[in-house]
């Protein structure tokens, strides 16, 4: 019953989303408050309905209800509970349902907490959000229904792909989807503003918390995905430039650009046209990512089992949303008034620069991801574009951006003084130069890029902190005053500094882990020893073990440093019973922020086993930096100033009075 109830709730959500697609936006355009009033409660209702349907599917997974085809195909009664639950979104149908759930969740958030947003904009936004919701609900019910039933249920399911049976799958896709889909609300805001023809500085202020929220989750989602691939695939790599990874990186780059350009729009009412376009592009790239993953047009680690009908359906949705919004944009954008003026050297100028580089980086990733596809269609030639391409394009494009990061926040709005700004950064520059020289002294001249990379990372980190330190001016005002200044700084300033600092941390991790990783590949017999980066690993032998739904061969290793045992590592080779599918479980030893990574290969008849050991210095900084970035975003959201209270019915005279002193 619960299954069918969930199914019905989904159908009802489709119908209701169609109603929501029409009524509030009509109200906003005609100025009818009754129609607009419908939007918030219905947005909450949509969330409850899709939520009910999601819960119903989850229940059927947890109880192993094999009368549901989706459960049969992706679950197994012996699977641990957590993977029964995470299995709900470990497949195409369930993950689209999660996609829609997040879509309506953001709608409900705006419906509930968006009372500071003017009713017309809010209702139109919720309507636009419902267009997307209706499109995807239709997609689910027509091509990917998770509630398809079997009259004669089998007694056991096919189990979930073992690679996906990992705590990473419980965390990574939901985070990523919240980010991915979160940009839908920014898109809806942009389209609603275009429909209503009111695009001003206030719009940017209303949209900023939502953009930030999506960005925070996308940052976390991508970094968790990277860490998951790192330890689960057993290859020791943390980024593969796989098309699906790129598909999540593109909206992140565009979304980061959007965050920055919206700032200019909010403060100076400049870059309006560009910001709206970015909002449209960011979500379009999210949709494109969804299309790439699910249509099977690209070969990828992540590709779902695909079905051409689904691909075509998503392609149609993609064209409809992207084409429609761009048409609307082309029609409305020329009507926008010119915004505030600014000199090339200014805060605005630096943000424009940021946007330029981020856009160029997005284009590079876009070309690298889609060029093979285009070439295949045009000439039939099969190529792959891998890490070398991206290193050669993405890297050089980002370096100037990274150099520029510390300058942005210290430049004044409108007309900046580069010299004055540089003076505030000379300490940061000195420290990073020292770091750079120290690295040259430490590692010699063979690797020129690594010390430069470290120097750049230190520059970004210290430069980001210099911004805060510069503001409190300890030497001038004394410690007590300085502390109160510190706490008095607005959240968005803190957020900026923290997030920029995080960028530097990630960069440091990338540079050191790529340049100074050491590895050994050996065939080891029991009691054999391999030494690496000052560690000695002894293979103690392998023993079989049985897990809930797999059997595994666990190899025991002892790690010694200077003759002292510091840890034991147990990498294993698993075979999942239901699918008879093998996986490699790497063992990772975290030492400070560095890691020892141990992965098993084929085991030989005589008890020997192939072993690959890596030492990856400072590698965890890559993900720690991302978490710091996300934290910076959260601090920025928490800024009280973003929550402009709903104004009391404004009197015209008061508004003018408030404006007068400035005249």
């Amino acid at each position, binding site marked *: 019953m619960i299954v069918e109830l969930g199914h019905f709730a989904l159908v009802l959500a489709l119908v209701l989303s169609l109603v929501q697609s029409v009524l509030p936006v009509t109200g906003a355009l005609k100025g009818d408050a009754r129609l607009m009033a419908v939007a918030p409660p219905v947005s909450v209702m949509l969330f409850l309905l899709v939520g009910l349907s999601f819960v119903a599917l989850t229940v059927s997974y947890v109880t192993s209800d094999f009368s549901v085809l989706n459960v049969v195909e992706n679950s197994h009664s012996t699977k641990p509970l957590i993977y029964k639950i995470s299995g709900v979104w470990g497949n195409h149908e369930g993950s689209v349902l999660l996609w829609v759930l997040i879509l309506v969740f953001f709608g409900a958030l705006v419906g509930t907490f968006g009372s500071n947003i003017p009713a017309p904009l809010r209702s139109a936004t919720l309507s636009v959000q419902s267009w997307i919701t209706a499109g995807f609900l239709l997609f689910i019910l027509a091509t990917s229904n998770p509630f398809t039933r079997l009259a004669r249920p089998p007694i056991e399911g096919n189990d979930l792909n073992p*690679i996906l049976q990992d705590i990473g799958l419980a965390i990574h896709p939901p985070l990523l989807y919240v980010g991915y889909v979160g940009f839908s609300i920014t898109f809806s805001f942009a389209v609603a503003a275009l429909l209503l023809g009111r695009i001003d500085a206030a719009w940017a202020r209303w949209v900023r918390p939502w953009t930030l929220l999506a960005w925070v989750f996308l940052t976390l989602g991508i970094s968790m995905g990277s860490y998951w691939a790192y330890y689960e695939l057993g290859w020791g790599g943390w980024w593969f430039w796989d098309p699906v990874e790129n598909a999540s990186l593109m909206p992140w780059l565009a979304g980061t650009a959007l965050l920055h350009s919206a700032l200019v729009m909010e403060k100076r009412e400049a870059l309006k046209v560009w910001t709206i376009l970015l909002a449209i592009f960011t979500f379009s790239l999210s949709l494109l990512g969804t299309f790439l993953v699910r249509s099977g047009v690209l070969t990828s680690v992540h590709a779902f*089992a695909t079905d051409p009908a689904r691909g075509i359906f998503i392609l149609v949705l993609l064209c409809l949303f992207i084409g429609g919004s761009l048409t609307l944009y082309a029609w409305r954008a020329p009507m926008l008034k010119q915004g505030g003026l600014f000199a090339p050297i200014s805060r605005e100028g630096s943000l424009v620069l940021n946007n*330029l*580089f981020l*856009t160029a980086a997005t284009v*590079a990733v876009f070309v*690298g991801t889609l060029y093979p596809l285009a070439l295949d269609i045009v000439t039939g030639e*099969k190529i792959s574009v891998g890490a070398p391409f991206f290193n050669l*394009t993405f890297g050089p*494009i980002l370096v100037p951006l990274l150099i520029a990061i510390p300058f942005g926040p210290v430049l004044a709005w409108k007309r900046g003084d580069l010299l004055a700004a540089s003076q505030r950064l000379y300490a940061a520059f000195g420290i990073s130069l020292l770091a750079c020289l120290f690295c040259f002294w430490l590692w010699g001249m063979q690797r020129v890029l690594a010390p430069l990379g470290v120097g750049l990372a230190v520059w970004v980190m210290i430069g980001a902190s210099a911004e805060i330190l510069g503001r409190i001016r300890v030497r001038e005002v004394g410690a007590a005053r300085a502390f109160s200044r510190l706490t008095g700084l607005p959240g968005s300033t803190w957020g900026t500094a923290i997030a920029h600092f995080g960028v530097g941390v990630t960069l440091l991790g990338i540079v050191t882990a790529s340049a100074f990783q050491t590895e050994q590949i050996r065939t080891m017999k029991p009691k054999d020893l391999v030494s690496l980066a000052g560690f000695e690993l002894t293979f103690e032998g392998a023993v079989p073990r049985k897990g809930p739904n797999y059997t595994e061969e666990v190899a025991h290793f002892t790690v010694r440093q200077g003759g002292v045992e510091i840890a034991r590592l147990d990498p294993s080779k698993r075979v999942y019973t239901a699918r008879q599918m093998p996986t490699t479980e790497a063992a990772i030893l975290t030492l400070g922020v560095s890691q020892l990574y141990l992965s098993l290969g084929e085991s030989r008849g005589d008890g020997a086993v192939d072993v690959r050991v890596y030492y990856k210095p400072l590698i965890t900084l890559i993900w720690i930096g991302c978490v710091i970035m996300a934290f910076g975003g959260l601090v920025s959201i928490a800024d009280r100033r973003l929550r402009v209270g709903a104004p009391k019915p404004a009197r015209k005279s008061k508004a003018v009075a408030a404006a007068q002193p400035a005249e």
Partner: protein
Amino acid sequence: MTRKQRRLTMIGAAGVVLAAAVGLILYALNDQIVFFQSPTDVVEKGIGPGQRIRLGGLVEEGSVVRADDAHVTFSVTDTSNSVKVTYTGILPDLFREGQGVVTEGTVGPDGVFVADNVLAKHDEKYIPKEVAEALKKQGVWKGDN
């Protein structure tokens, strides 16, 4: 500066950055892409030593020979031709004789393909798309894909 001059400065700067980026992308596309080849392509087209390619096909039955320290040799075949491959490292979990595989590397002077990357499917439902198509050309693959 007048409004117009400012605009021009901005647009000029943007143009320079974008032109540089496009140049970089084009250069990289010329230089850094890797073509997918089947064993037949390698044999017939005579891929020169040192040229980086992706070689895909089926791992020939009985061809896998493992040596110490994770050195392995095997043959990749599209049933008409086969190419010998050497690789050092951990093979993917689903690397199997008779299954699809994609290897990346260069043809050595002795005609043996030296791979530095081996990809097998990640799921029993998945066969590398290029491999499937190359095999279809040879009339071997009968998947519904």
